[in-house]
């Protein structure tokens, strides 16, 4: 089995993707911590870390103002570790601020009612801003390694398709239909020229009320020029996502539904020509003995009784046997999933720990499972092999 050592050595950007609830944020943080301990100037971009993990990353103390502000964390060694929470809330505002041709144009857009609804409801705008900020940080050249935790979307693909979706929405050939001429002769002329279009516009007017259409039209007029360079920007974003130095790390747990979504994700990143380089199986239950030895319940209860657990023996035995059943399922599901992966994809298996991992020491518990180099180091230190908690 190939762990993530080579992936870390060969890539500058690692994007952690996967469905919600599989431990993606912790995995991203653990990867970044290891990179930093290897001497790399590292930054981890996270979306919405759990409170205690955020505390550990130095991201919680100041609350929401922390968004978009990089925080450097104390670590041992030559590397540096910075954490930053991506700013999603003001995503569109930031985009407008950045691209508006003048302060007047900016204010007109920001106060437009249609814009306000759009910026709150446009699916994918947050995902887009995440990629946009990734691009900016990458191009600054300040970091050797950038680890990205993608937004918790049900379909991780939203993240990858958002830039294109926004580009499509702002496509000139569509936008021009909504721009000012509606108030001059434009649409009216069209109406007489073409009966079909006429019927359609009358329907749209009836449907929405003319005042609303005016807002829409005004919005697109104000936006004119704002997104002149948007297509180039989107191209740049995709260039980075497809770069040789960018690796996608798929984080999964060995559950049926999660893996089914993951299969879909693997196919889709392939079609989008984005490089899947590693799969991390998280929260894995390893089977203790697949060979049926000593797993008879009665014998186990008897053994536990000899070991001083007279009253709790049955409970402990049942607990263990239940985990074994889950573990058998995990093993089968992972094997089936692995069989579909290219042999170039690195694979790591991280066990189900007995607690949430929410501090540096906790994150470091993942390292021996993610990186062979960490595993061999911990083998040569006083204890044999990675240890489990408690």
């Amino acid at each position, binding site marked *: 089995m190939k762990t993530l050592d080579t992936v870390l050595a060969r890539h500058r950007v690692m994007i952690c993707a996967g469905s919600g609830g599989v431990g993606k944020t912790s995995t991203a943080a653990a990867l970044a911590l290891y990179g930093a301990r290897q001497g790399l100037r590292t930054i981890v971009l996270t979306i919405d870390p759990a*409170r205690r993990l955020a505390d550990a990353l130095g991201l919680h103390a100041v609350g929401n103002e922390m968004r978009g502000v990089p925080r450097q964390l104390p670590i041992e060694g030559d590397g540096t570790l910075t954490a930053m929470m991506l700013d999603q809330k003001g995503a569109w505002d930031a985009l407008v601020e950045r691209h508006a041709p003048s302060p007047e144009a900016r204010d007109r857009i920001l106060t437009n*009612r*249609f814009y306000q609804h759009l910026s709150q409801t446009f*699916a994918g705008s947050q995902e887009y801003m995440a990629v946009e900020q990734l691009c900016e940080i990458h191009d600054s050249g300040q970091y050797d390694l950038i680890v990205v935790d993608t937004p918790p979307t049900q379909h991780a693909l939203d993240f990858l398709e958002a830039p294109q979706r926004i580009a499509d929405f702002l496509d000139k050939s569509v936008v021009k239909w909504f721009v000012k001429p509606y108030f001059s002769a434009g649409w009216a002329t069209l109406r007489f020229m073409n009966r079909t279009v006429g019927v359609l516009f009358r329907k749209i007017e009836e449907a929405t009320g003319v005042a*609303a259409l005016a807002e829409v039209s005004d919005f697109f007029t104000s936006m004119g020029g704002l997104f002149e360079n948007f297509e180039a920007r989107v191209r740049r974003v995709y260039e980075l996502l497809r770069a040789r130095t960018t690796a996608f790390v798929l984080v999964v747990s060995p559950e049926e539904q999660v893996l089914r979504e993951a299969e879909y994700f693997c196919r889709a990143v392939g079609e989008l020509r984005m490089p899947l380089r590693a799969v991390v199986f998280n929260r894995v239950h390893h089977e203790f003995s697949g060979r049926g030895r000593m797993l008879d319940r009665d014998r186990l209860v008897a053994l536990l009784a000899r070991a001083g657990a007279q009253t709790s023996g049955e409970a*402990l035995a049942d*607990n263990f046997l239940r985990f074994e059943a889950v573990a058998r399922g995990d093993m089968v599901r992972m094997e089936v999933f692995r069989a579909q992966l290219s042999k170039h994809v690195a694979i790591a298996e991280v066990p189900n720990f007995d607690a949430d991992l929410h501090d540096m020491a906790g994150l470091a518990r993942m390292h021996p499972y993610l990186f062979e180099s960490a595993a061999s180091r911990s083998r040569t230190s006083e204890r044999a092999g990675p240890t489990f908690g408690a």
Partner: protein
Amino acid sequence: MVVGKGGVGKTTVACALGLEAARMGKRTVLAEVDGSGRAAGLFGAEPASVGEAVQVRPNLHILNADGKASLEEYLALIIPIRRLLDAVFASRIYNYFVAAAPGLKELMTIGKIWWEAERLDEATGRRRWDLVILDAPATGHSVQYLRMPQATRDAFSAGWVARESQRVVDLLTDPHRTAVNFVTTAEEMPVNETIEMYRELCGELHMPPGMLFVNRVHRVNFHREDLARVTTAAATLKSRDERALLQEVVRRGHEELGWAEINTEYLKRLSREVDLPRVELPYVFAEEFGLEQVRELSRHIETVGGAVASKRAGA
């Protein structure tokens, strides 16, 4: 409505509710909105084609709801000129706009749910469904979905888009017809999101609250001292295999205790911050999670949920 963070078992709970409702004789349709076909898959059925429903059990249908298909179904109702519609649906501008227009997909999906809830059966003239269950998409997205009708009504203050949106809002906020049910696990992130979503949906959007389902609750019937005792005793055993086995038994004990402690902590937090009748569903240890496990949860909901609901009604 069944809402919750991704990965907490929303679909499982929605299916368990669907099974229970169907068993009670309610004509039930369960709507999936992301085209994943998860619910259909749990019942061993192929997902229905986009916008269609497939029957999976007596009284239980699964609807593959989809924004674009719903929009087209809706447009066909209001513009009954097939030739014009075909021209529109084929046009590049229409397709671009539908793919990108903010909130349109979400709005039409919720509109479709409204339509199914109100729809009459042509043969009998009665409502087609006694119960519509929406298996909402993961948190952030479900708020986006459920917010759309109100956002649209406010954006278009005149015309029939505003009027139609108002009708959907009326359904969503009517406590006699709608209930929002929350699904979570008793862990930090799902609980945070549940609290936030409870405030947003039942506070800001005035949607009537239903029940809180806490899924995958770990409960132990042994103690840390038991594990300590076994650890000490195991060290004295001669057989290496037996020692290894007992070590593993102890480790699994700690694993389960750890999760049970986390669950207890967050169940307390839920009690403090989400004032809803609560049903705890046990973590199901199974080699493979399938329909049998959903049935088990459904029976659990029947006994525990029934008691919780009637206690609530009595109070």
